[in-house]
């Protein structure tokens, strides 16, 4: 039945079901900034993304229905699956924009309800009843939505059609009392207040769209373990090139499976190394001629032309082997580097406004030379203390002369922060279509630096990625010693996503650097997007345990490690790495720049 209704509707939408009021249209883009928060407050699964009903992220403007139907009027319906909540890209059902907007929120509230029993009619009616019972404020809105909808609906000509329409109207007016749709009725008109009877699968939606399935679409929640196999593609042409797909499916997965099965107990270096080496070769041999350099970059083999500029020979760092419960000395080589092609550059124009705001806000944080009492020397007498001291002397108790001056020392905060950004390849993929995450990271770093420079705290910015233990790439973006200027901005602007995430080594190096800072409080802020992992045995438990160990070492050394992540699944492993209160998950990655700075302000307030 469900399927039947669904396919009827898919046909039906091509025949303008509702006229629509374009001048009152509300776009998903308009409500999107509030949608995630609202959906979660309604009890919706916090892991779900919000996408437009055509199966693309709301940012992408594809009007599938409009295009397929070749008409302007159309009905899009909402539904929810394991990955996302799908909402119409625009709603112009009502002549009143407030109602169209209200419909968005109604649909989100309805979709947040746990799935109800029964067929399409019953489950929607049941869900509606539940919403209304728990949210009296919604009842008013709902009544207005229904009252305005009924006049828009046609009366079917034949008898069974009328019976079905009758049942639907009854369900709309008296939610919770619905019986099943009468058997054998013709396709009922869509009900825009309800969820889709048989949501199109993501693939189907994409096919209808006449486009290649979006790579990365629908699996934005993939663990990094899988994401790492995704190739970089910032050029749509790559998508059309089936080779990447084929490549992923055949070579890498097979290799991965092979390694998984044959995982060694001890140091699995030699074999793993060989397998990985094979993979590199495969990469090259399968590679076409013209795209040689691009593909090499895409798939883990640094193409000389793309590589960053190494500084020195690299440092040997230990790594924790959890199976043997000990640090293996000199296990990885960390290579400090400067981003290639970095030339001094000013802050991009689009960030100027935000930067100005942040600077003002953070200047307020800066220790505006507040008066400090009880100094051993200083320009003013500390009268309070002098009186107290004299009083005590008079009382006959011998007291040593305390510090009796007031001073205005600068830098009262005595705070140093090292920000370590994960630049691994996965940072390329998780924002899906809505924009490359490296841009968000870049903006975040830029704004973060503007803010910190304004408040005067000592800070350094570093990025990292890795390519097995022999190459942990540690990108120097702004050193503690140097001022934050256009040279540093240029380096941040030049970052590109790298390889894998050998987090332990990067944290250890950051710890060393941060420990050299003379501040009283030292914050090690890690911006990450997923689990630690690398091509060799640095995966799963091994990587997690090494990272955890590195975090513990930092904490023991007196630093305060804190992780900000955009990985929605971070709750599974971050408490283990950073402690229950040692991390924060940013659910909407686009907000990372704001979140990062406000987090810093509240952490250090």
């Amino acid at each position, binding site marked *: 039945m469900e399927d039947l209704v669904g396919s009827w509707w898919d046909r039906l939408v091509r025949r303008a079901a509702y006229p629509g009021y374009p001048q009152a249209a509300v776009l998903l883009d308009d409500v999107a*900034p*509030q*949608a*995630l*928060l*609202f959906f*979660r*407050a*309604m*009890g919706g699964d*916090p892991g779900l993304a919000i996408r437009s009903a055509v199966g693309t992220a709301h940012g992408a403007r594809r009007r599938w229905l409009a295009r397929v139907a070749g008409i302007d009027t159309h009905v899009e319906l909402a539904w929810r699956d394991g990955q996302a909540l799908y909402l119409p890209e625009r709603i112009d059902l009502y002549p009143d924009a407030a109602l169209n907007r209200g419909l968005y*929120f109604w649909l989100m*509230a309805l979709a947040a309800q746990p799935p109800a029993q029964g067929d399409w009619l019953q489950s929607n009616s049941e869900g509606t009843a539940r919403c209304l019972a*728990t*949210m*009296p*404020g*919604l009842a*008013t*809105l709902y009544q207005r939505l229904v009252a305005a909808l009924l006049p828009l609906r046609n009366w079917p000509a034949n008898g069974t059609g009328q019976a079905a329409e009758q049942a639907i109207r009854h369900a709309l007016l008296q939610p919770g009392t619905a019986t099943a749709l009468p058997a054998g009725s013709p396709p009922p008109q869509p009900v825009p207040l309800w969820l889709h009877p048989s949501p199109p699968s993501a693939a189907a939606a994409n096919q209808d769209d006449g486009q290649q399935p979006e790579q990365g679409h629908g699996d934005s929640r993939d663990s990094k373990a899988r994401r790492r196999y995704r190739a970089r593609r910032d050029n749509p042409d790559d998508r059309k090139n089936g080779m990447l797909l084929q490549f992923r499916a055949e070579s890498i997965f097979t290799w991965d499976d092979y390694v998984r099965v044959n995982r060694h107990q001890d140091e699995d270096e030699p074999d793993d190394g060989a397998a990985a080496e094979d993979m590199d070769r495969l990469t090259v041999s399968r590679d076409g001629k013209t795209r040689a350099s691009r593909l090499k970059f895409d798939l883990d083999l640094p193409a000389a032309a793309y590589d960053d500029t190494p500084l020195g020979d690299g440092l040997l760092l230990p790594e924790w082997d959890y199976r043997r419960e000990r640090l293996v000395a000199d296990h990885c080589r960390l290579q400090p580097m400067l981003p290639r092609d970095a030339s001094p550059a000013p802050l991009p124009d689009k960030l100027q406004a935000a930067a100005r705001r942040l600077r003002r806000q953070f200047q307020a944080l800066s220790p505006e030379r507040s008066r400090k009492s009880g100094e051993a020397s200083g320009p003013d007498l500390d009268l309070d203390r002098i*009186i*107290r001291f*004299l*009083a*005590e002397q*008079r*009382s006959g*108790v011998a*007291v040593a002369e305390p510090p009796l001056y007031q001073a205005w020392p600068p830098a009262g905060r005595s705070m140093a922060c090292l920000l370590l950004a994960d630049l691994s390849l996965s940072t390329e993929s998780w924002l899906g279509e809505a924009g490359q995450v490296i841009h968000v990271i870049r903006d975040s770093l830029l704004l973060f630096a503007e803010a910190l420079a304004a408040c005067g705290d000592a800070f350094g910015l570093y990025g990292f990625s890795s390519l097995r233990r022999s190459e942990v790439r540690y990108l120097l973006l702004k050193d503690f010693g140097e001022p934050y200027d256009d040279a540093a901005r240029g380096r941040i602007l030049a970052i590109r996503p790298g390889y894998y995430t050998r987090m332990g080594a990067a944290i250890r190096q950051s710890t060393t650097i941060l420990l050299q800072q003379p501040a009283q*409080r030292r*914050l090690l802020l890690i911006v990450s997007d997923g689990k630690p992992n690398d091509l060799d045995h640095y995966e799963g438990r091994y990587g997690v345990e090494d990272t955890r160990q590195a975090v513990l070492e930092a904490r023991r050394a007196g630093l*305060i490690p*804190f992780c900000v992540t955009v990985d929605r699944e971070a709750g599974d492993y971050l408490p283990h790495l950073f402690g229950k*209160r*040692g*991390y*924060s*998950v940013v*659910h909407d990655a686009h907000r990372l720049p*704001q979140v990062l700075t406000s987090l810093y302000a*509240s*952490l*250090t*307030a």
Partner: protein
Amino acid sequence: MNAPHRAAAAAPLPFYQPLADECEVFEAAWHQQLPLLIKGPTGCGKTRFVAHMAARLGLPLFTVSCHDDLSAADLVGRHLIAAGNTQWCDGPLTRAVRAGGICYLDEVVEARKDTTVVLHPLTDDRRILPIERTGEQLAAPASFMLVVSYNPGYQHVLKTLKPSTRQRFVALAFDFPPPAVELTVLREEGGADEALARRLVALAAQLRRLGGYHLDEAVSTRLLVYAAKLIASGMAARTACRVALVEPLSDEPDTLAALMAVVDTQFGA
């Protein structure tokens, strides 16, 4: 520093609706002369709980709100000059010890680390308070109790108690009350009727789903009480929710708009 106040014997108990067995724990700790640490988010009833227990046990309560300039002298006391002569003046901690009452240090993590060290001899089995400046050494009477509180939210990772301080306390974790309890609080404290209290509690459940993701801290019982009071006094519900529940939680326009949409699911016109 708050002025200490002595609970008048006849005054009614400050209203406190227990969430679990915290009153029994408090009493047991007091009987055993053990200091107590209360941790919990802001506005969940920590201060009220201590006030309630002090009154219930008939003990004077001395409250100190800690801040980063709080010195040991602020707690213990200092010499003042009066009429050309010096005179020792007890700080709240000393007064609490002398009176055998409860000394409550609110937001103790805000205090400087060297300040909390004066608590050490009081919070082990010695239970003494040495007053360096007068050479006096006070032994705490059996009825004296030290209670400290702090908010362990992640925003406070930079401020923690030293383990050597922490490990001197019996600890109670507070959280926002379950709906049935919060309902009673809103009726008693906020003067809300049953229907209003229900809606506010339902709204709180919705808003608290956002704690940690979109909001630094979840909406507190204190704010709900504010909203209840404003509505009960005749303010339009939407306005009251906006000023008491939404605006205090965020400055981001999108977040505020979304929070208002959530409010509308309970109080929409």
